[in-house]
């Protein structure tokens, strides 16, 4: 097991690296990539709430990203609302949508749940594509201006990066608190032993529904930031591929870990945007990496790496009392 001091040093180093990033890179391009990673990470974190902690595999998580982004842009750039009210409407309405979608999709579990979320996501995509007078159809919706909260000029890449990084920190903190809370603990109970939880008198449906709405809320936050970043949204944001990509981030990074989705988001965004400049067939590379992860680190990158480091340490110290597996399970929460 790691000593806590070592952990702290690692955390501080990581945090310092994230904060210093705009000075480490000279091109604004990389700062913008970092902002995209952060936004994708927030979405992946929210999906991980469902998958990792709730055992509910959703293939419709792009719905919250897309709806929130569409609403934010439509409200501020086309319906004449201010930035703050537009943002509140976007997040509020999307969370309300998550309430409805949760109500509908939690009627089933497992594969049924997956199919319902998939269907709901496709309906939204269809609406965005077809209702051209409202959404601009396949040409998408643009004209969004980045806001100036508290006099911050968000058009500046570094300031925007800190802005989204703040939300990532907030999301991590809230989600960590949620997981440790009674509700979060009981959610993990419903994941592992739904029948036993029911027998113990827990309202499994309500626990799952509340978590679903909480995840939808953070999806909406990611959508709002997406709208600020791209200043444009098209049906692509609501497409199945966006949902699947987010799912990939969660699984690659490590389901049920706090930081796994962040690592997964970094992996996917960097492959898609940076590596694709050098390798035309980057999709094949992504597939190969994913297969490698599944083969060698079936729990995901972060738990996999932790287990490897642990094993390495064991070899170095010759300490064979604790097994790798128990260490991982303790690290997971």
């Amino acid at each position, binding site marked *: 097991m790691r000593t806590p001091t070592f952990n702290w040093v690692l955390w501080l180093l990581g945090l310092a690296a994230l904060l210093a990033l705009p000075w480490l*890179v000279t091109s604004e391009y990389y700062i913008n990539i970092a902002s995209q990673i952060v936004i994708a990470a927030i979405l992946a974190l929210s999906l991980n709430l469902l998958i990792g902690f709730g055992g509910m595999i959703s293939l419709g998580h792009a719905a919250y990203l897309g709806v929130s982004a569409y609403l934010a842009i439509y409200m501020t750039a086309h319906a004449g609302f201010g930035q703050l009210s537009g943002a509140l409407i976007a997040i509020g309405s999307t969370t309300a949508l998550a309430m409805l979608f949760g109500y509908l999709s939690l009627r089933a579990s497992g594969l049924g749940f997956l199919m319902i979320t998939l269907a709901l996501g496709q309906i939204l995509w269809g609406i965005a594509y077809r209702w051209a007078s409202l959404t601009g*159809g396949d040409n998408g919706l643009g004209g969004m201006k980045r806001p100036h909260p508290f006099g911050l000029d968000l*058009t500046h890449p570094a300031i925007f990066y800190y802005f989204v990084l703040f939300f990532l920190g907030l999301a991590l903190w809230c989600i960590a608190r949620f997981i440790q809370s009674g509700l979060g603990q009981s959610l993990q109970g419903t994941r592992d032993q739904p029948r036993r939880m029911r027998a113990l008198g827990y309202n499994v449906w309500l626990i799952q529904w509340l978590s679903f709405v909480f995840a939808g809320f953070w999806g909406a936050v990611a959508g709002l930031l997406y709208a600020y970043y791209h200043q*444009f949204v098209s049906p692509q944001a609501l497409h199945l591929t966006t949902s699947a990509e987010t799912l990939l981030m969660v699984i690659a990074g490590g389901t049920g870990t706090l930081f796994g989705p962040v690592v997964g988001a970094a992996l996917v965004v960097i492959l898609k945007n940076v590596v694709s400049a050098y390798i035309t067939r980057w999709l094949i590379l992504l597939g190969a990496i994913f297969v490698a992860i599944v083969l060698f680190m079936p729990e995901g990158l972060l738990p996999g790496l932790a287990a490897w480091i642990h094993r390495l340490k064991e070899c170095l110290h010759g300490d064979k009392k604790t097994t790798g597996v128990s260490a991982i399970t303790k690290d997971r929460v």
Partner: protein
Amino acid sequence: MMRSSVLVSAAVATLLVSASLVEAADNGPLKVGFLTVRSGALAAGGRQMEEGLKLCIDEHHGEMAGRKIEVITADTAGQPAVTKTKAQELVERDGAQVLIGPLAAFEALAIDDYIRQTKTPIISPSAAAEDLTQRKLNPWFVRAVGTSAQPYHPFGEYAAKELHYKKIAIIADDFAFGHEIAAGFQRMFEQNGGKIVQKLWSPLNTAEYGTYITQIDPSVDAVFAAFAGGNGIKFLSEYKNYGMQKPVLGSMTTVDEGILKRMGDEALGVISAGWYSAATDTPTNKKFVAAMRKAYGADPGYYSVGAYMACQFLNNALEQVKSDTSNKEAFMKALRNVNITDSPYGPVKIDKYGQPILDITIRNVEKKDGRLQNVVIKTYPSVSQFWTYGAEEFLKSPVYSRDWTPAK
């Protein structure tokens, strides 16, 4: 840790790049960022764009108005969000001073705000959405192809006046490009006494058109089919297999040279309109087609000629400013002022909205020299995106859409 080391090395690399950039501010090569599509559904068009651009650069021996041209290519994967990142990559990291691309209209719209912010001149080699040069003007944008509907105003008139059709059914791809083509055609066809009796919208990824073909009103004189990508191939072969006898009118992209080579006799006799045909009988075009056939073994079509012309626009503008791009406004003005008297398109001028005024040809698919060709049967010279309307009058009506005057 690995990531940060990657970032550090990237930082070092960009430092080096930016240092060399500063040194070579003016007389260094002009960096042209080229946004194309190499993966996904639009990759075929992207490849043709690359071919067209490469041929043009090679023709100029990599030099325009005495200045070296360096093309940096990026793959947008046909996704709007990626397009923006790639545009940033080209402009911010690679220091591109002018962009050529992207392929699809939604990609062009996705980077619209970014182009304004960074004031990067951009030449569109393919994206045809009407509003890019109409109601959503961007001062840094110039187009090297027609708008979606530009050829179909004269074509609507031609169908009514010279083909003497009275009733036509439209079938088109169900996305903005299809909607705009259909509306432009309908507007001028009906203005000249014809009537669109039916409009069928088939999804872009329709697997087979049987259900649509059987819906076609048997009393119509002809069918106007507006398809993009490879859909024209599927539609025309199934249309023939269903034993349909009504003549087919096509959009430029229904029988584009890029896909015509994969069609058989079912394409014979399809009359279409467009701003370019590989069969145009001018010395300049013959030379261009011969060069394309020599280099790539195929006739140039929509995408290859679009990228080729975008590159010629760049050349024309660079000659005007004597290859000095340090004053962006002056360079942009030159791009908006492109005037080419002789090109594969024929003569080209740019209107004040950044849209070319082009010769529109009516073409008929015939078999010549052992291959299908769009043989020109009539030319409408110098056609504006507003046709015969004044710009202001034209812009008063809303942009062409799916609901533009429903079929009666």
